[in-house]
């Protein structure tokens, strides 16, 4: 029965999109942080998606095959900004602090995209559920 596999597939997508939303929330929350060194500065996190090819991670009766998972969460390679702020207690000996490389505008756009994708998959599940219920009603025809 293929219709009930839709629940697993779209469910895995819901999970991945919510992980993406979480990383975006983390990025936005840390957008204003500063650090004393280049290494310590906050770097934006990106969720990298991958298709679930085998039966990996599926529980009995619930197949995620063909769904999507978060393969890894990697750092944004964009260089961090250096700001001259001698008054900051974190400033290095030259008076510089290192801000995060979060692009707030880009994160907001990404958040919209993630939320739309989430809604799409909810809609997919709703349709599949309705069809499944109607199929069950066949016994009452």
């Amino acid at each position, binding site marked *: 029965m293929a219709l009930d596999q*839709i629940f697993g597939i779209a469910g895995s997508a819901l999970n991945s999109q919510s992980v993406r939303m979480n990383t975006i929330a983390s990025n936005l929350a840390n957008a204003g942080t500063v650090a004393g060194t280049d290494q310590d500065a906050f770097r934006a996190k990106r969720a990298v*998606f991958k298709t679930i090819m085998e039966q990996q991670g599926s529980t009995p009766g619930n197949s995620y095959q*063909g769904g999507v998972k978060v393969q890894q969460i990697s750092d944004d390679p964009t260089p961090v900004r250096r700001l001259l702020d001698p008054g900051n207690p974190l400033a290095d000996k030259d008076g510089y602090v290192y801000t995060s490389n979060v692009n707030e505008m880009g994160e907001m756009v990404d958040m919209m995209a993630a939320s739309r994708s989430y809604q799409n998959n909810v809609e*997919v599940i709703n349709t599949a559920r309705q069809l499944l219920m109607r199929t069950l009603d066949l016994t009452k025809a």
Partner: protein
Amino acid sequence: MNVLDNALGVHAQTLGMRSQRMELLARNIANADTPNFKARDIDFKQVMQQAQDTAMVTTQVGHVAQGDAGSADAVKYRTPFNTAFDGNTVELHVEQAKYGKSAADYQATLNFLEQRVSGIRKALRGD
């Protein structure tokens, strides 16, 4: 059992095929943001043609059912209108439209089946 299969006609088979297609479209929508994912779809016409042309029966365990939508030749990669930078060929609006249409198709097949079932029921009841 054979009588019942004949009474339901092609619709019972069609329902399975349509649900497999919906699963494939759900996969496409789920992977709309996955880099290098290639959208796939079932060539419904070809599957139905196969099922009608050669109505071969599976008599042994190793046999593969004809007109099975899961067979490799029926599932094809979609040609996108525009390609994305990350190698993904899913176009969400296209997939949504196809998912909606195939849901309607599924309901149409269900309606046919409902009519058949209620017909059989009426015949059995005999009133």
